[in-house]
């Protein structure tokens, strides 16, 4: 029942996340959410996109954000996650390298 790692349409993603099409289209235009295919009618999204959409809706509702601020926050959150990941990986590598008697 799982495994088909998500092929979702714009309508699916709106229904699942509770965001409207206008917002979603804007997120895709800003690269916050990745879509395959050309133009909203043939867009295909994966499971990751749904989770970003969820996060967007939670932030929008809970913090009462306007679109530009929301896009900025989502962008920065993604960047922060990437940096944390990178930092962790470099720390581990350094640790291995400095470890005594290795």
């Amino acid at each position, binding site marked *: *029942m*799982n*495994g088909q*790692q*998500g092929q979702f349409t714009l309508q699916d993603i709106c*229904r*699942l996340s*509770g965001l409207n099409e206008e917002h979603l289209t804007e997120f895709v235009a800003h690269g916050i959410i990745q879509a395959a295919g050309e133009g909203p009618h043939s867009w295909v999204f994966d*499971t*990751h996109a*749904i*989770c970003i959409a*969820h*996060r967007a809706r*939670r*932030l929008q*509702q*809970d*913090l*009462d954000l306007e679109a530009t601020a929301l896009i900025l*926050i989502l962008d920065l*959150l993604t960047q922060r996650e990437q940096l944390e990941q990178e930092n962790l*990986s470099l720390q*581990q*590598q350094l640790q*291995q*390298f400095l470890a005594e008697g*290795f």
Partner: protein
Amino acid sequence: MEFKDYYKILGLEPDTDEKAIKTAYRRLARKYHPDISKEPDAEKKFKEMAEAYEVLSDSNKRAEYDQLRRYGNKRSFEPPPGWQQNEAGAQEGYEDFSEFFRSFFTSAQHAQNGPGKAGFNARGQDIEMELPLFLEETLQEQTRNLNLNTGGRADKTLKVKIPAGISDGERIRLKGQGRPGIAGGPAGDLYLRIRYAPHPLFLVSGRDLSLTVPITPWEAALGTTATVPTLDGKIKVKIAAGSQTGQKLRIKGKGLHGKKANGDLLVILKVTMPPKPDARESELWQALAAHNPFNPRSDWEKST
């Protein structure tokens, strides 16, 4: 039932005006919103705040609450007879809120205007969970039995297939396995987020793995063939004469398995000195020192 001091939760005095309530909520939301915050307990705190704000930002609810606050017994709150606990309340989008909250604000007109709970449909909430996975487990499809309590009456066990080659952070969606639907609506979905468990030897970078391989000074000088581990068995790696600490060798296809192609294994060399030399070894090092004028700090000498 525990009495909730909504003013205290938002750090406010009871006579605060609406604008200050909004400001306090926003300030705390910025700090504790679970999507942003790194604070421990952020989610729990945020739910409390959202509940407090839900009541205090609505003048009707606030008036009701203020009245209760003034006359009620705050230590152990017993709802008066008129405020019958309403089981249906749990199904109107407030399932995250406390029992205290639900015991009054459960009528249909209240449910219309909850923040963060816009009643656009009656789907159950989605749930996101982390699923730790060892690197070795990404090589073949895995089957896991997950024990879940998603707000139904009893725990349930789900059989989940984790496809081979799944990435760190990737999500598996289990349709209809989230919280139950509201008033006959469809159930929410369950998202399992894959988290690679740290490996004692291999570090992950995308589909590539890296491995620090210690070698002796003479192996570095003369070259050798070293046997190194991979995720599935050992391989032999040729190390060239005159190798150096930090040098990287890329072994194609020996990284994590991917859906399209396998990643590579990056072997990073680390020249490691043997323990303190004995008399014979010291002689050998001295002979080498006498023969080779190599000075790794020669750059410093030039500049001083």
